[in-house]
């Protein structure tokens, strides 16, 4: 089994899992916050935020990678700020890959959560308020559990997207085996050489198996979340 993939490929698989997991996890809280803002907020610039969130979907991944490089690169305004102030370097690091994946998956995450937020019965939140719960608490113990299905769906989408993301990642952090070479980068390399099909196939299969596992887990969580709310 282990020699079915080369050590370098195993590294790519592990890295992909790490990147996808971190991308999903790190974008969760901002995702919930932005979903709340977009769905509930009435503020100036809401439309602009909405557009910005959707951009990674609308633009070709290469452009996003480009923009990331310009913004978060070593010389980019945000990148240099992060590096100087917090010592966080993204370029050529797996963290940069995670950032690229998180950004590409962000619109999907936000949409799923937004849909759930929209379907929450606000009368329940009112009821919680009458019982003395501050709005922050109301969010935490009423809204959040009720939107759990949407959060789970959003996480699945974000994770899956991160597993498949390639264009923005390779443009931003290029392809450094062991550091930024994720499964899609490795597959890409295979597709670029004549006769690379079998290698590409093997890695594709690994991706499929991982996504089956991820879906299976998410369904399990979603079912639990739903059972808590519904009858029987």
């Amino acid at each position, binding site marked *: 089994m282990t020699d079915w993939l080369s050590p370098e490929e195993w590294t790519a698989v592990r890295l992909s899992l790490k990147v996808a997991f971190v991308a999903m996890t790190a974008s969760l809280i901002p995702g919930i916050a932005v979903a709340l803002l977009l769905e509930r907020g009435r503020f100036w610039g809401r439309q602009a935020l909405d557009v910005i969130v959707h951009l990674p979907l609308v633009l070709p991944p290469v452009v996003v990678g480009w923009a990331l490089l310009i913004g978060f690169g070593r010389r980019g305004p945000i990148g240099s700020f992060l590096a100087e102030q917090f010592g966080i370097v993204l370029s050529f690091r797996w963290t940069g890959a995670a950032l690229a994946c998180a950004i590409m998956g962000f619109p999907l995450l936000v949409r799923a959560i937004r849909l759930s937020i929209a379907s929450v019965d606000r*009368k*329940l939140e*009112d009821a919680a*308020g*009458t019982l*003395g719960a*501050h709005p922050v*608490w109301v969010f935490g113990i009423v809204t959040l559990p009720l939107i759990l299905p949407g959060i789970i769906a959003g996480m699945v989408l974000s994770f899956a997207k991160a597993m498949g993301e390639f264009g923005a990642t390779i443009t931003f952090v290029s392809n450094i085996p062991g550091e930024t070479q994720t499964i899609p980068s490795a597959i890409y390399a295979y597709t670029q050489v004549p006769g690379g099909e079998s290698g590409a196939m093997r890695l594709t299969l690994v991706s499929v198996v991982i996504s089956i596992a991820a879906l299976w887990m998410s369904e399990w969580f979603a079912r639990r979340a739903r059972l*808590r*709310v519904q009858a029987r």
Partner: protein
Amino acid sequence: MILEVDIRHEQGGFVLQARFQSGGGLTALFGPSGSGKTTIVNAIGGLVRPEHGRVVVQDRVLVDTKKNVFVPKHRRRIGYVFQEGRLFPHLDVRQNLLFGRWFTPRRERTANFDHVVDLLGIGHLLERRPSTLSGGEKQRVAIGRALLADPQLLLMDEPLASLDEARKAEIYPYIERLRDEGAVPIVLVSHSVAEIARLATSVVVLSEGRVTASGRASEILRHTDLFAQVGPAEAGALVEAQILRHEDGFGLTILQAKAGLLTVPRIERPIGAPLRVRLRARDIILSLHRPEGLSALNILPGRIASIDDTGGPSVDVMLECGGDAIVARVTRRSVRELGLAPGLAVHAIIKSIAFDPEALGSVAPHDV
């Protein structure tokens, strides 16, 4: 005044313009469907922000649009039993019940969980999710949730509408206790005059967004025509009485009212306890002489104060019985046949059994 409401609010084409005050205890809101009861309760509870006006509860200004005061709902310390349940679907019954408790300062947690659960008969449901409860079960949990929040203001929007009489009979004394002991003002929406008569200290009658009458329950209920809109069957006088003695052998209790002695089914309260008794106008028979050989145990002598002809087949006869005002509803034919007229001495006959538990409310000493 414990509760002052003076608001104007428009929603859609509906205009609510309500102004009333109440001296605490239990304030009943009464009126036909769509008359604005829930809207008022929502304004008191902070769920509706009235366009104009003031809401003051126990000297605390909750809303004053002129001064731009609007206390958010989570700082009003209310317990709200909603017309439509609103249980938290993701929490089990126990968690629903304890929800408000998490936000109650520890030393103010006085409601006893086990007691409330027993009272409402929901002990076997504690681990269940709301979606598996029957209609009445949901409603009971909603009541419990509000009570266990140890509110400083209890809002109840038709809380007992879908409960059976036996269950209601168990819940009433609890509400009475809250009203009398806890110094918790209660606002209750109800369509049942019996319920209001039993529980209410003040009554606010609404119609199409306006207050058509408001005042002490004893006053409002005597004006039987006010209730024409809800069917006249339930109107009657509220009379204050004290427990004189118990007749254990017969399971009866003898009350002393100004009008005389009243014999009623046994009431489990100590001798001397003050009580409010509703004498429904339709339960009272008038007799020219003191009758003999009747199964009715209560015969109160009195004098006709006035006769209210409301135009229907029946008239309301106001009696003066030793200081208590009593109303009897009799047919116009009886008025003619018996020659009833103001000033005439008559006897009011009331069955002991006519005092169903609903009609016998406990009462705070300062009340009525």
